[in-house]
């Protein structure tokens, strides 16, 4: 039976085209790869090649014809021994996939289907059993201890980055790890973020569990392609066959007087990306418990530390194996008049603000999200439904901030509970200036949080 040659789609967007010119005539023998015709698509004039061999039996569409729909038969191809009178085949199968049984609808939570409120019951279990022995430790020590414990526990965990080994870490987070684990597992890299991030992702595909230290997250912008395109998306693109169980960690946000290129908070950037988990601890206990969870997590985790917090001390539970689950916020301070939601160093400003507010008789509840992806919406919503007012606090820029996202979520899910619009306290919408006075103006302060709370409480 003769084969129909169909009008081809020659670009991702082509629906019809012009058959500009036939380069074969009836009776010609063609072999695969031979150019049959020139076809004008929506983008360009393209050559159309034969796939099968045979003899051109009939040209069904004259050259110069425009508006020829994709998949229209344009010629008949005869196999050996056939003649042009051979019966034409039935119309080619439609290009669309076979519509068999109706497909089940996806169970997706779209904005429209989202229950308006209230929150599901928030997880309020304590992070450690009552009566646990505590010790005082800096965030720096907590991070180091977490990494050392996990490296002890799992041979496939290794640390790589600039100055993590012999120099003992640019911020001394990896102090002593080279001595403890050797150069095979504590690897000094050249200054080559794009390259070593890619190598680490490849190593994760290959079955290891890398911890990548960025000297600061400012430099991770050079590696952003591997973080997003290679680490975050591969599990999905491979249909679940392989992913990147690994941690990208390092200091994030403003340090002090280092100017625009070294002072940026990337929380909202990373929190946007499906496939990543994003952690931003405030206290040493959280730094430790969340770092251990991050290293064990089978997904790529962005772990955002803070240089200013490294040296601060907190109580950390003395437990054999202390971890904190992702997606569980911590309520640092209970209150009744307003909910302050923050994370990372923002929690320090929020707690300071809460102290000041208490002196003026305003009772603030302070929530530390701890992880931004997943995010503990329930704890936030439960609190807002109680206080009816909310202020979000973060160091990053205002546009597309975590606060924006929380405001939207609260509006959708708990609109009727709000007695005032949610206010987002953020860093100023400027590159970080160097001059001491300007820098002070750019960075979020507890006084700004106090002012925002007064606004939502109409004081």
């Amino acid at each position, binding site marked *: 039976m003769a084969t129909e040659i169909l009008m081809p789609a020659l670009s991702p967007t082509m629906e019809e085209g012009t058959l500009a010119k036939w380069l074969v005539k009836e009776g010609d023998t063609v072999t695969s790869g031979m150019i049959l015709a020139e076809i004008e698509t929506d983008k360009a004039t393209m050559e159309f090649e034969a796939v099968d061999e045979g003899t051109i039996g009939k040209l069904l569409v004259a050259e110069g014809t425009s508006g020829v729909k994709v998949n229209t038969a344009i010629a008949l191809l005869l196999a050996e021994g056939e003649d042009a009178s051979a019966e034409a085949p039935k119309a080619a199968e439609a290009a669309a996939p076979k519509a068999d049984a109706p497909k089940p609808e996806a169970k997706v939570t779209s904005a429209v289907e989202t229950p308006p409120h209230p929150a599901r019951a928030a997880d309020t279990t304590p992070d450690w059993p009552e009566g646990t022995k505590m010790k005082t430790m800096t965030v720096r020590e907590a991070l180091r201890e977490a990494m050392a414990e996990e490296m002890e526990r799992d041979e496939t965990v290794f640390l790589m980055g600039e100055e993590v080994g012999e120099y003992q870490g640019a911020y001394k987070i990896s102090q002593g790890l080279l001595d403890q684990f050797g150069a095979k597992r504590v690897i000094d890299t050249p200054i080559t973020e794009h390259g070593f991030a890619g190598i680490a992702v490849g190593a994760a595909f290959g079955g290891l569990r890398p911890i990548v230290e960025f000297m600061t997250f400012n430099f991770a912008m050079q590696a952003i392609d591997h973080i997003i395109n290679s680490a975050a998306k591969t599990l999905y693109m491979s249909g*679940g066959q392989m992913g990147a169980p690994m941690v990208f960690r390092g200091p994030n946000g403003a340090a002090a007087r280092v100017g625009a290129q070294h002072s940026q908070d990337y929380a909202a950037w990373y929190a946007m990306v499906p496939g990543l988990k994003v952690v931003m601890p405030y206290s040493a206990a959280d730094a430790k418990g969340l770092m251990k969870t991050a290293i064990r997590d089978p997904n790529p985790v962005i772990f955002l530390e803070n240089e200013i917090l490294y040296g601060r001390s907190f109580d950390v539970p003395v437990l054999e194996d202390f971890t904190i689950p992702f997606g569980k916020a911590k309520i640092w301070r209970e209150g009744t008049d307003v909910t302050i939601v923050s994370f990372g160093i923002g929690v320090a400003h929020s707690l300071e603000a809460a102290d000041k507010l208490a002196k003026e008789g305003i009772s603030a509840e302070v929530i530390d999200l701890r992880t931004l992806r997943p995010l503990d919406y329930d704890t936030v919503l439960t609190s807002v439904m109680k206080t009816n007012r909310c202020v979000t606090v973060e160091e990053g820029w205002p546009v597309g901030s975590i606060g924006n996202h929380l405001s939207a979520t609260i509006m959708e899910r708990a609109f009727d509970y709000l007695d005032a619009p949610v206010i987002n306290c953020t860093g100023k919408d400027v590159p970080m200036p160097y001059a001491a006075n300007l820098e002070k103006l750019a960075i979020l302060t507890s006084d700004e949080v106090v002012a925002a709370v007064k606004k939502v409480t109409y004081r």
Partner: protein
Amino acid sequence: MAARKVPDLPNVSKDDLLKYYREMLLIRRFEEKAGQLYGMGLIGGFCHLYIGQEAVVVGLEAAAEEGDKRITSYRDHGHMLACGMDPKGVMAELTGREGGYSRGKGGSMHMFSKEKHFYGGHGIVGAQVPLGAGLAFADKYKGNGRVTFTYFGDGAANQGQVYETYNMAELWDLPVVFVIENNQYAMGTSVKRSTKSPSLWQRGAAYGIEGEAVDGMDVLAVKEAGERAVAYCRAGKGPYILEVMTYRYRGHSMSDPAKYRSREEVQKMREERDAIEHVRDLLMQGGHATDEDLKAIDKEIKAIVNEAAEFAKDSPEPDPAELWTDIYADAAPQTA
């Protein structure tokens, strides 16, 4: 038709020649079929065919051992077939169906097979280079003696991350073969218009990496060079670069009008240097196969490809619930 140079008869067995012939032909016929399905609207988006370059992967796969890994760019169909992935699963991924290697969620450019040690399928030009070195890093860490083939194009060879990777791969003696598939064009930009370097493999010298250029239209030459490279890597001497000189007959992707080169240039390569015809000549001249024998193989391959195409058309689209799976390895994604 200009005559192909009559090849000297090399020292290679009939079985090997027939194997290479069959594997290269499978890639070519598969790609022709993919082009056809694209034309019918069954394959969407970008689709980069490997026609013309078949000897590169087939030669290098002949130098690989079980357990060795491979990773490449979006021009990946040939690599997948050559490492033994099922044509049905590959074609069904091209059509975006449930039966595809990524259950339709990756597409032509993003496909993987853990079982066959095929690590993609990457759409960002050059990104697979550090990823491939990372796979080799993992193998070295585990001390398992495996080698990773990291394929990239002449265009990708201008990416900075390639040189970052060269530096670390040599510094850490990673067992990775960097395979530059120099098909002379990056989309419409010829190598001459993108660099003044006389050769791409020699850039490795700046990092202390050894390498060589190979005739990529000669599967036996590719295999031989591949064996040298693999032996070097397996011996723990670090990475090795192969610049394989090849040519793509088709456009960069399906919507490439190919105005940057002449039809004659393509035709000349096809007629004088075609890698499949080369092996065909070797088979015929060595008295290893008759025209009939080869026709029979052709028929066999066509049947495999047609079966793959039918499977790819009949396989249903993924269940809508698949939209939300495989985002996290351990948990369903969260909704606000």
